[in-house]
């Protein structure tokens, strides 16, 4: 094993991202969930900057900066504000059977690693082996969205999925063209603000942010 140190650091970041994805999957507290999300963004920004440094892809520095701004500062701040205003800062979600969820998550990770294996062999980037982890985090965030019944954790899962996709883009291709990345960032930001407004409306209409109340529209 003669991998340069920066590459090892990137791999380390990837492993940490996977760890955080699992931590989010099992986290019951909304506040800690948001903090984990911010941490995920921070690691993502750091690893992107590392990739930019090793591969001399200067546009990745902008991506890293964008990630830092958006996902470490702005979005967690918005979320913190939201949960403070909605007075759900200390909400704890009751989730059943965390071990089962974890096992499903483990199966997803194995699936993702297998799926990514042929693709990462084709990639020419130094980060190619992390593609499997990126895919796994996407799937894990997806699982988190399915298993949560409250609105805020679902949204955090959604944003975490976006993080996973971003990481996939970095590890497979050194990031998307800048114009696309800007567009995606704009969409995420706008979506977040819309959701913020949404939370209040849901709260007014249902008197709760628990989505169990939102099961009226069903097929008979």
């Amino acid at each position, binding site marked *: 094993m003669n991998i340069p140190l920066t590459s090892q650091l990137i791999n380390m970041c990837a492993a940490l991202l996977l760890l955080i994805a699992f931590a989010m999957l099992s986290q019951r507290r909304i506040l800690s969930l948001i903090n984990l999300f911010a941490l995920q963004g921070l690691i993502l920004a750091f690893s992107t900057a590392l990739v930019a440094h090793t591969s001399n*892809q200067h546009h990745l520095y902008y991506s890293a900066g964008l990630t830092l701004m958006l996902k470490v500062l702005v979005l967690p701040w918005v979320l913190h504000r939201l949960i403070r205003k909605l007075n759900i800062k200390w909400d704890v979600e009751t989730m059943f059977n965390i071990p089962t969820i974890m096992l499903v998550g483990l199966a997803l990770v194995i699936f993702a690693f297998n*799926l990514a294996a*042929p*693709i990462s062999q*084709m*990639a*020419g980037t130094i980060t190619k082996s992390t593609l499997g982890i990126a*895919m796994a985090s*996407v799937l894990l965030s*997806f699982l988190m*969205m399915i298993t949560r019944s409250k*609105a805020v954790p*679902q949204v955090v899962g*959604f944003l975490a*999925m*976006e993080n996973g*996709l971003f990481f*996939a*883009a970095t590890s*497979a*291709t*050194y990031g*998307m*063209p*800048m*114009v*696309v990345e800007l*567009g*995606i960032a*704009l*969409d995420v930001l*706008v*979506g977040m603000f*819309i*959701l913020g407004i*949404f939370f209040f*409306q*849901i709260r*007014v*209409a*249902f008197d709760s942010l628990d*989505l169990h109340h*939102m*099961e*009226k*529209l069903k*097929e*008979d």
Partner: protein
Amino acid sequence: MEIFWVLGIPLFGGLMMAVFGTRQHAPEFNSALSFCTFVASAVLTTRVITGGPFSIWGEQFFVDAFNVFLVALTAFVGFTTSLFSRPYMRIEQHHGKLSINMLRLYYSMYQLFSFTMLLALLTNNMGILWVAMEAATLTTVLLVSLYRTPASLEAAWKYFILCGVGLAQALFGTILLYFAAEKILGAGGTALLWTHLNEVKTQLEPTVLSLAFVFLLVGYGTKIGLAPLHNWLPDAHAEGPTPVSAVLSGLLLNVALYAVVRSKVLVDGALGTHLAGNLMMAFGLLSVVMAAFFLARQKDVKRMFAYSSIEHMGLMTFAFGMGGPVATFAGLLHMTVHSLTKSAIFFAVGHAAQKSGTQLMKDIRGLIKTSPTVGWGLALGTLAILGMPPFGVFTSEFMILTTAMHTYPWTMPFLLIALGVAFASIFGRMQLMVFGETTGHRLPHPPAMIPVFLHLALVLLLGLYIPPYLADWYRQATALIG
């Protein structure tokens, strides 16, 4: 330059409506903006017909026969829907369902929604296409939740989450596409441009592209409303304002299908097999069958027609999946006539529901007595969507079915049974709603029936006679898709 106007007018309009949307003549202004967009798109269309495909601004935007036909359709239905929403929204306001600020939001988002759809159609960049689709989701989420009722919030939430997740898959597909393209075209802005990809499609890595297509199909397929990812669609259609249901069904689903077809062209080139087509056929067939059986169980009229949209989108996906000149031609024709017919039906249904004060079909009765235009509009629209001759839907469905019979005979029983079930359930209910004793009351504003009959007349025309330039145009698009 026309592209600039086609995109600039709705974007500018969205900002203008955000400022002036509370004025008394905002609805007229909204229609005027949509009309200008339509005129610009018509000019663009004539230019493409006479001059052939072209691209501008560093090839970031690209027009060929395929997308210009959708641009024209989108602008046209956008315009007629804005005409329809003028009295419709006034009635809703009169009924106290909407405040003036909600109307401002509606007009602003309506224009921005048109902008995002046109951007998705006109952009040459697969990444921007994704961005535009996501932006279209965001604007429509706000439109669906316009009434702020618990049901509409629930529908909007479901819509946002499901389509958000779906589009995330599409983003992953786009990343994989870029990954494959970057090897041939080099890193940077050009590797996601469709025209460039199309030139080198045979050299793209087949494994990566097939995986990318699966993600793209699942992602944009959510947006098309393909089963089993369709759950958001009936809710969003039933709970949003009717003009929004009309543009969702008539336009947004088409745009999503457009994205899938564009991807399919690349994947087919890279793989040289029929994998993409087979996947699309499977999803399409499943949607047709599933939607037909859900149709029979609906009580809400807008939900029922939403399922009918799923069925027709499934049929189109199936047609594009089969490929070949006839099926693709039929798919394009079906896109056109379905857009026109379905939006016309939603216009009529919207007024019918306003008359009866409910969307439940058992409470909508005897439309033809209180308001003959609405009644006839609904009756004719329903006949058209069910594929009765001489309407255009018959032509396209007939072409799809004959091709299917020829190339994939085993699909015939499924398709025929599904279409039969759909026919029986919709037709029976339409009869009860249109004829019989009435419960309705007069509307405070005269209903807008011109768009309904304009659309139906066009569908009838397309059933009887396809103008040569239109046929030529379809043929060009068919040649592009292959």
